[in-house]
C-alpha cells in the first residue's frame, strides 16, 4: 500500500499535475482502493476547517505585510544605510546584501519576498563595482532564505499549528541560529574575498557622518519588527494577532511615506491573494490526504518502518536530513513541510529530540531547499532580477552557503542549546 501510494505520488508529480491536485487525487484514490471507510464524505469538513483555521491567517498577513513594505520605498534607503556600516569589510556590499536580508527577515515571514526586495536594490552594484557575479548572486539567493529562520516566520506558525508547539518559543529559538547563519554567510564572503581579493570589487567609501545619518532609515523595519515580534513578548498579542497587527502597522508606515494609492493597493491585494490562495489550496488538499493516510494506517506504517531500521537517535536524524535535502531539490517548501510533518514529527520526538529544536532544523532544511536546483524558488527570483546570463551562475554562488546551513545543523545537533537556550532563558521551562 505504501509502495502504491509512493508510486502514484511520483507519477502524478512527474506529469506535472499541480501539487495541490496531486495530493487531492492521491487522497481520493487511496480512499477508493485501500479504505473500508467512505473518507471522501469527510472532505467538506476538512476543507472548511483548513479554510477557516484562524492560525493560518498569518500566511496572508505576512504576505500582505511584505507587499506593502516593498511598495513604500524603504528598501533602497535601508540597503544604503546598512551598506554604510558593513561595506568596509573585504567583500564590500555583499555584506550589506546579507545584512539587509537579515533586517528584512526580521519584518517578513517569507523568504522569497526577502530575496526579491533586497535583490532588486542590490543587483545594479555588481557591474558598477566589479564584484564576482556568481558569489554576489549567491549572497542574495541565500541571504533571502533568512526570511523564514529569523522571526517572524510563516514556517514557524505552520509548524506550531501542525505539531502543537509554541510559536513564541519557536520565534525565540530561531533568533540565535538566524544570527549565527547570518554570521556564517558573512564569514564565507570574508574568506572568499581574502583568498581571492578580486572577487571583492572596488571598496566603498563611507564616513561616520554618513553612518550616523543613515540610522534613521532603519527605523521603518525596526518599527515593524517591534509590532510583529515585540508585541508578542510584551504580552499584547498572540503570534497570529501580531501578524495582523503587522499589516496594520505597515499600512500606517506606507501612509506616512505617502506611498498609498489605489493602483498600489489593488496590486497589494492581487499579489497577496495569488500567493495565499496558491498556498491554501495545497494546505487544503494536504489536510485531506493526511486524513486519508492516518485513517488507512500509512502514517503509523512509515513511523514503524523507520523505527525498524534501528538507526538510533543520531543515525535516524542524519537519515532524515539527507531525506529532506533530496526532497528539497524537487519540492515546493510549504508542501514539503505539511506533507512530511505528520510522519516525521512523531519519529523525531519519539527518538528524544526536542520538538522546538526540530522546528528550527526543519526550517534550515527548507532554507536549503529554496536554493538547491532544480526546484529552488530563490534561485529563480535572483536569476530573473538579473535578466541575463546562465542560472548556473546563481546556483554555483549559492552552494557555499548551503554548506554553511548544513554546518549549522550539525552544530545544532551537537549543541541544541544554540536554539533552545534563548527560549528557556526568556520563557522558562523546557
Amino acid at each position, binding site marked *: 500500500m505504501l509502495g502504491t501510494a509512493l508510486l502514484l505520488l511520483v507519477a502524478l508529480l512527474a506529469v506535472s*499535475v499541480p501539487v495541490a491536485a496531486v495530493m487531492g487525487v492521491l487522497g481520493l484514490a487511496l480512499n477508493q482502493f485501500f479504505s473500508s471507510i467512505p473518507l471522501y464524505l469527510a472532505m467538506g469538513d476538512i476543507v472548511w476547517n483548513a479554510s477557516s483555521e484562524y492560525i493560518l491567517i498569518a500566511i496572508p498577513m505576512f504576505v500582505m505585510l511584505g507587499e506593502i513594505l516593498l511598495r513604500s520605498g524603504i528598501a533602497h534607503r535601508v540597503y544604503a544605510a546598512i551598506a554604510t556600516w558593513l561595506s568596509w569589510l573585504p567583500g564590500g556590499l555583499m555584506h550589506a546584501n546579507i545584512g539587509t536580508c537579515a533586517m528584512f527577515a526580521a519584518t517578513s515571514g517569507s523568504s522569497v519576498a526577502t530575496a526579491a526586495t533586497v535583490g532588486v536594490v542590490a543587483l545594479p552594484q555588481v557591474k558598477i563595482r566589479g564584484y564576482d557575479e556568481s558569489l554576489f548572486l549567491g549572497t542574495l539567493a541565500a541571504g533571502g532564505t533568512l526570511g523564514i529562520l529569523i522571526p517572524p516566520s510563516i514556517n514557524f506558525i505552520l509548524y506550531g499549528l501542525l505539531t502543537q508547539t509554541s510559536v513564541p518559543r519557536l520565534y525565540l529559538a530561531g533568533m540565535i541560529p538566524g544570527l549565527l547563519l547570518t554570521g556564517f554567510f558573512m564569514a564565507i564572503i570574508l574568506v572568499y574575498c581574502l583568498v581571492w581579493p578580486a572577487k571583492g570589487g572596488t571598496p566603498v567609501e563611507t564616513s561616520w557622518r554618513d553612518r550616523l545619518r543613515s540610522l534613521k532609515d532603519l527605523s521603518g523595519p525596526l518599527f515593524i519588527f517591534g509590532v510583529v515580534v515585540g508585541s508578542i513578548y510584551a504580552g499584547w498579542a498572540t503570534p497570529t494577532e501580531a501578524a495582523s497587527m503587522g499589516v496594520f502597522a505597515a499600512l500606517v508606515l506606507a501612509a506616512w511615506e505617502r506611498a498609498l494609492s489605489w493602483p498600489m493597493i489593488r496590486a497589494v491585494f492581487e499579489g497577496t491573494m495569488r500567493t495565499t490562495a496558491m498556498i491554501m489550496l495545497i494546505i487544503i488538499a494536504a489536510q485531506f490526504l493526511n486524513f486519508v493516510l492516518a485513517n488507512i494506517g500509512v502514517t503509523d506504517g512509515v513511523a514503524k518502518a523507520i523505527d525498524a531500521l534501528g538507526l538510533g537517535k543520531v543515525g535516524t536524524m542524519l537519515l532524515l536530513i539527507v531525506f529532506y535535502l533530496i526532497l528539497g531539490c524537487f519540492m515546493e517548501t510549504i508542501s514539503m513541510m505539511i506533507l512530511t510533518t505528520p510522519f516525521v514529527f512523531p519519529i523525531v520526538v519519539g527518538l528524544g529530540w526536542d520538538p522546538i529544536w526540530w522546528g528550527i532544523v526543519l526550517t534550515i532544511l527548507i532554507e536549503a531547499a529554496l536554493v538547491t536546483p532544480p526546484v529552488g524558488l530563490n534561485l529563480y527570483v535572483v536569476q530573473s532580477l538579473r535578466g541575463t546570463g546562465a542560472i548556473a551562475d546563481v546556483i554555483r554562488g549559492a552552494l557555499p552557503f548551503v554548506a554553511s546551513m548544513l554546518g549549522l545543523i550539525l552544530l545544532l545537533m551537537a549543541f541544541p542549546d544554540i536554539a533552545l537556550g534563548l527560549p528557556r532563558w526568556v520563557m522558562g521551562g523546557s
Partner: protein
Amino acid sequence: MERLWRGASVVALWGAWAGGAMILLAAVVVTVEVISRKLLAFAFSGSDEIAAYLFAVGTSWSLAHVLATRGHVRIDVLYGQLGPRVRALFDLVAIVGLAILVLAIVDRAGEIFLDNLAGGNRSNTPLRIPLAWPQAPWFAGFVLFLAVTVLAFLRSLLALVRGDYGTVAATIGVPSQDEEVKGELGSLGIGTSNTTANTGAKR
C-alpha cells in the same frame, strides 16, 4: 469561447481584489481587538472568528484568479525537457487532475453548506454566527473556481485539436521560470530589468 475566457479572467481578478480587501479588513478587526483588550477596560472579543471567516471567503474567491494566471504550483522537472506537443498533453492531464480535486471540493463543501443552512446551525462560540452565512460566499468561491477550471480545460482542448499549442500553454501551461518569476516580481511592483528597478521609492 475567447470572450467567455476573457470575461472569466476579469471576474476572477475582481474576486482576488475582493479577497485581498477581506484580508485587510481581517487585519483591522484583529488589531482593534488587541488594542481594545490592552487599552480599554473591557475586552471586545470574537475577532478571531470573524477574521477566520474573512480568510476563508477571501481565499476561496481568489482561487480562480490563481488558475487564470497559471499560479498553481506544478513540478516541471520532466515537463521542461519536452516538446510543445507533449507538453500540451501534460497540461491537459494536469487540468483534469485539478478539475477532479475542485469537483470533489465543490461537492462536499456544498453538502456541508446545505446541511448547515437546513439545520440553521450556528458556530459554537460566543458570537453564535449561523454557519451558512460565511459558508455561502465561501462555497460560491469554489464554484467560480470550478467554472474557470472547466473553461480553461475546454479552451485548451479546442486549441489542442486545432494544433494550437501556444494557446494551450498560454491557458494552462507551466509558466517558464522566467515568466513565473516576472509574474511574481511584477505583482510585487518590481521591474525585472536592472536599470529600471523600482520599488515605488519616493522622495
